[in-house]
């Protein structure tokens, strides 16, 4: 590599670095204007609503991940194994959340479930169910893609047939053979889902749920420096999650690449 192209690479790297970190630095600098120093962070962490809404969103996120995995993994597995011709249609369906805005989704849910045989929107429990269901739909593009990529990396047909010839039924094949080999994909899908759920505002607001997204919005309406502090805290939590992905993924990646001759 000559000197000029090396310089160009460094330039690209520096521009990318600044593009990514300057807004964070700006946010951090702004949050530090409150006196005494770090008081915005202290106010946020002392506010009981901060922990309550964060824990609520985290629980909803975990439930969403469970429902999403329970729906997506068997579907993607079956499509890859038996119905490969349906793959484009399934992909299209899973991409719909990118096309249909959350506001349309939540109004659809409210109209359908405010009355009729299933008036879920009328109770706290029902609204929670609706929230998890709506977030599950939002997670489809991320979870399906992650699972589908994971399935592509393993020889699904041979592993399934090997398990069957050894006497295993479908549930055992999924739980003991397929899912363990999708660990990295499931983790990526799960963390992306968690990131979306924790920051989501529209659906949580219209379903009147005490979630983290509406809390940040409320905070932004009343206070100056604290929303910046909350943004940085949630950003830090996301980075911890990303770190966990790479930590869990390191061992599993080497295991999955093996289905062939060395």
């Amino acid at each position: 590599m000559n000197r000029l192209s090396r310089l160009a690479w460094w330039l690209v790297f520096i521009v990318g670095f600044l593009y990514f970190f300057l807004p964070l630095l700006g946010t951090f600098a702004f949050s530090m204007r409150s006196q005494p120093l770090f008081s915005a962070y202290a106010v946020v962490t002392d506010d009981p609503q901060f922990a309550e809404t964060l824990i609520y969103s985290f629980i909803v996120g975990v439930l969403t991940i469970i429902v999403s995995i329970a729906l997506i993994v068997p579907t993607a597995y079956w499509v890859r194994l038996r119905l490969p011709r349906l793959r484009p249609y399934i992909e299209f369906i899973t991409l719909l959340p990118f096309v249909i805005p959350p506001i349309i989704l939540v109004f659809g849910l409210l109209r359908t479930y405010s009355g009729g045989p299933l008036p879920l929107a009328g109770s706290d429990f029902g609204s929670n169910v609706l929230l998890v269901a709506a977030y599950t739909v939002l997670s489809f593009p991320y979870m399906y893609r992650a699972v589908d990529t994971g399935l592509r990396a393993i020889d699904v047909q041979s592993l399934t047939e090997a398990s069957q010839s050894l006497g295993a039924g479908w549930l055992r094949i999924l739980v003991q053979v397929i899912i363990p080999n999708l660990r990295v994909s499931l983790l990526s899908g799960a963390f992306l889902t968690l990131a979306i759920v924790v920051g989501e505002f529209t659906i949580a607001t219209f379903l009147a749920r005490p979630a983290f997204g509406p809390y940040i919005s409320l905070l932004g309406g009343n206070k100056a420096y604290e929303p910046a502090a909350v943004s940085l805290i949630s950003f830090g939590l996301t980075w911890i999650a990303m770190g966990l992905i790479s930590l869990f993924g390191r061992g599993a990646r080497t295991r999955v690449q093996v289905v062939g001759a060395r």
Partner: protein
Amino acid sequence: MAFLELSGIQKRFGETSAVIDFNLAAERGEFVSFLGPSGCGKTTTLRMIAGFEQPTAGTVAVDGKDITRRAPNQRNVGMVFQSYALFPNMTVAGNVGFGLRVRKQPKDRVAKRVTELLELIHLPDKADRYPYQLSGGQQQRVALARALAIEPQVLLLDEPLSALDAKIRVILRNEIRAIQRSLGITTVYVTHDQEEALSLSDRIVVMSEGRIEQIGSPFEVYNFPATSFVASFVGTLNVMTARVAGAAEGRLVMDGQPIRAARPVTIAPDGANVTIAFRPEMLSMGEAGANRLRGTVQDVTFLGSIVRIRVHLASGATVVSVDTFNDPNLTVPEAGAEVTISFPPEAVLVLEAPPAATAEDLIAEA
């Protein structure tokens, strides 16, 4: 009654017939190979025995019981795959013991059986390794142990050695045969490698375009091929057209030169054309045999222990291969030299009506 019986098996995929009227009766403990080129239906037939494909017509029976409609996990048939199909998330011991755990065997029994099998495949110290820590040959050994762990009634092997290098392939195929013999397990082996089929099998089923061409012992299939396809696919063969000059005496004319077969020609009258074949190793240079053909050496190829000499017959249209054992004292003719090749009447196989393709074409297709 045969232990494994396939009766009138047909398999269609839409308009395409993958397997046509397949009938086979294998005895208990027999090693049967399905041999044929890609797309001949051998793997599809194997998959129907395993239950991964349903026959369009016909039945599969094991030990007198019809298993045609049974799910794959209800058949007690072990299978070894070309891609090994080891579970990447499990250790070697986990893989080998999987079938036993499915059958809810006690832990100590699973551990004992896993140890036995790892000793059988000469990998007793690899129990805690993951598949990615093993070589291809070791992985395939583990796959074999995993299939044998459940004590299957029938063992199916789908081109298990194709992904391995030549040396390992020979070692492993001898091990597979030794293990199969010691356990006395009925085995069906799919391969496109004629050497593998010839060296391993009690019987070979040669297949082409979904049909059985011939079923026989390796000796029968090699020495007495039933069709020109079998003759060309199993081993190297000179396949040519000859005219019947005297059917009752086995007299023929090939390339304008008279030759004689050991048996009378029964499939065509005098004056008709027939396909004849002879193996390169049955021919020799010189005038020692009863049949003699004159020609010009086209080229000479060293194949290790064998030297193959290709000779243009006098008319120039036909090329015949002659194999002779390599020997440091051997005098090899130069290209362009005029030679006489000879062979006994027993070497001449009269097969059928003239072939649509030459031997080279058939080998190339395979």
